[in-house]
């Protein structure tokens, strides 16, 4: 297939995944901060600040009024602000632009759903939507729109190279963003003292699982009882949960292997990372994850560069 088209599909996959990730993080963080801001304002504030570490370069306006919930400014900035490069608006617009630039390579259903989801979102920005319940509702609707788009892609695409590059972008973005979320959240969580406020402590761990779309999957594996060490192990090494780092690396690796006959530099990088995630010795989950997460972030960056050199700049 054309290198330019492969490149656009790869980015479409990345931006779609990113849109979904931001939407989910906003919904979850909003729940968390609404629940905790009256009890422990610092903790609620910190949850929003983490977002700035995961998505750098965002501008958040000061709250509109003294009674405005803490979330409002963040929701507006990360959901609707067209200028924030990590807003849902920005990411979905980019996904749609990439889709539009290779519309002939997509199925009609895939393009229609992404176009419609973005058009509705654009309307919210235009109207300057700002009251919190309306923002929540719109965010929820956008989340469903994104799933409709992903479902349309899943349901209608033929599994050729186009599909593989799209999915490659999606899975690489997922591993990368998950590692960034873990890197932002785990240090503070790991150092927290459960005795200080048990309810809050577990709320935070539960929120982490929800933020990574893994709460229900964790419960299915380990039950409702949250054990921090098990949670970390689950998010990093679980074999079946689609949002664990191990599963994500395996997906990237599989797609790469199907695209290339001979493993190129990108496949080697991801293959080694995947092996480490499969054959870990438990030390990482035991608390030595900081260096490891740095490595995941680095390897994903290098993989991205290697893909560009091998497939997109021919």
């Amino acid at each position, binding site marked *: *297939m*054309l*290198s*330019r*088209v*492969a490149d656009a599909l790869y980015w479409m996959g990345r931006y779609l995944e990113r849109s979904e990730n931001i939407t989910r993080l906003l919904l979850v963080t909003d729940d968390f901060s609404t629940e905790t801001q009256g009890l422990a304002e610092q903790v609620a504030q910190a949850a929003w600040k983490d977002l700035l570490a995961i998505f750098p370069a965002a501008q958040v306006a000061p709250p509109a009024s003294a009674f405005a919930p803490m979330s409002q400014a963040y929701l507006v900035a990360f959901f609707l602000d067209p200028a924030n490069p990590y807003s849902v608006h920005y990411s979905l617009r980019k996904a749609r632009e990439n889709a*539009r*630039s*290779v*519309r*002939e*390579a997509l199925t009609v259903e895939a*393009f*229609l759903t992404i*176009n*419609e989801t973005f*058009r509705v979102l654009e309307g919210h920005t235009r109207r300057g939507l700002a009251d919190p319940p309306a923002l929540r509702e719109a965010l929820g609707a956008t989340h469903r729109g994104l799933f409709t788009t992903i479902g349309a892609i899943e349901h209608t695409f033929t599994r050729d*190279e186009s599909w593989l*590059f799209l999915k490659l972008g999606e899975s690489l973005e997922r591993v990368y963003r998950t590692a960034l979320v873990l890197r932002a959240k785990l240090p503070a969580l790991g150092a927290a003292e459960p005795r200080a406020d048990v309810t809050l402590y577990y709320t935070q761990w539960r929120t982490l699982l929800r933020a990574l779309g893994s709460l229900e999957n964790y419960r299915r594996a380990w039950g409702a009882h949250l054990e921090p060490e098990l949670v970390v192990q689950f998010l990093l090494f679980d074999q079946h949960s689609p949002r664990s780092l191990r599963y994500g690396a395996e997906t990237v690796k599989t797609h790469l292997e199907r*695209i290339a006959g001979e493993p190129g530099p990108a496949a080697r990088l991801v293959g080694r990372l995947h092996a480490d995630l499969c054959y870990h010795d438990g030390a990482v989950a035991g608390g030595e994850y900081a260096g490891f997460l740095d490595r995941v972030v680095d390897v994903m960056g290098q993989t991205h560069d290697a893909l560009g050199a091998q*497939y997109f700049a*021919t």
Partner: protein
Amino acid sequence: MKWVPDTTAYDEAFDRTAAPRPHYRPLVTTLESFTLAEIDRRERMQKLALVDQAITFTVYGEKDGIERIFPFDFVPRIIPAKEWERIEAGLVQRVTALNLFINDVYQDQKCLKDRVIPPELVLSRREYKRELLRVTPPRQIYTHVVGTDIIRDDRGEYLVLEDNCRCPSGVSYVLENRNLLHRVFPELFTRYPVRPIREYPRLLLDTLLWAAPRASEHPVAVVLTPGIHNSAYFEHSFLAREMGALLVEGRDLIVEDSYVYMRTTGGRQRVDVIYRRVDEDFLDPLTFRRDSMLGVPGLMNVYREGNVAIANAPGAGVADDKAVYAYLPALIKYYLDQEPLLGQVSTYVGLRKDDFAYMREHLSQLVVKTTGDSGGYNMLMGPFAGKKEIEAYLAQMKKAPGNYIAQPLIELSSHPTYVEGSFEPRRIDLRPFILYGESVRVLPGGLTRVALRPGSYVVNSSQGGGSKDTWVLAPRSA
């Protein structure tokens, strides 16, 4: 329900007594069975569908709203089988002659030597490409896809207004308009044998592959677009998808060892046919415009060596020149020894001294056009122009008389068009699409453009025009 027949122009749907013409009767009856509220609801549905599907075109020189919807009017234009038969035969004849003419211009120039058309008129055109003299395109086809604009005068006579031999656009709207009407007003179709048009993408692909220079089992055809910012990008992408061909930009192609390749994730892959939707001046910076970023350096060399087909072939533009148009009836006679089956508008050519003298004296009655422009730009609509405007235009004309042609104002026919609760007359034209492959074929119907402003004659999408679904009726099976 209010129907307003036209009192000056030829009304497609109503006769002079304001009674519906026979082939419009079922349509009027069907529409009258709806309440106004229901019609409004359908119209809203249809508008929403255009936005949801991003069926758009791009307007140059406007800051925001870069993507614009091409307005659609749901009242279909209906052409009876008998009328279409004549149009079709006339178009086949015309395109055959056009292709022979272009071949002649780039080979022996017999028509110039025989003075069928003044040599200076042809050879001075920017569209005449000296560098392509004696270069023969595969199968001697220049005009793979032609869009010919047809109007009807006040007596209902079909007249050719111009031929577009380079990259005529609009066919994607023809296909999408039909889809849209199927969904929004299925009731309208129940009483008419409307000829289907869905085959167009397949016919287009056949036409392109027929021109492939290589005797390969699987020749590769691609659609070349200037990119997403081009006004017809939607169409380029639409046709590529419908044909199952790749949509490429200049930067996706590369010339090596006298062949054209595209850059793919698996390395270089050879290309046999390029359906170019790029202006030919931008095709190859080494041959034509050096500042072109859209083209493929070296492409014209590959073409000269016969290793790639380009549709439409470079140089074809010499035939759709507005001054050459004036000579087409003579050219049809010259090449085919036939009388033209389709009439055309009488035309004064600035190059001819007598004609220019007439033009000067009668500007206030004429429509004057420059030979180089299209899309309704740089025109003088004499009957509607003020004195000052005419004088300024005349001053321009005197500088280069050969660049101007003039025609009497034709009362374009009009057609009922839904405007806020009533059906009002709006002027229309018709652009059928003709494919030149193994044989010459015409897509039944074409793009009916409609001037949405009351009284306006300008149907161009860039200037406030819209479009309609065009129905060609199948002949009644005896």
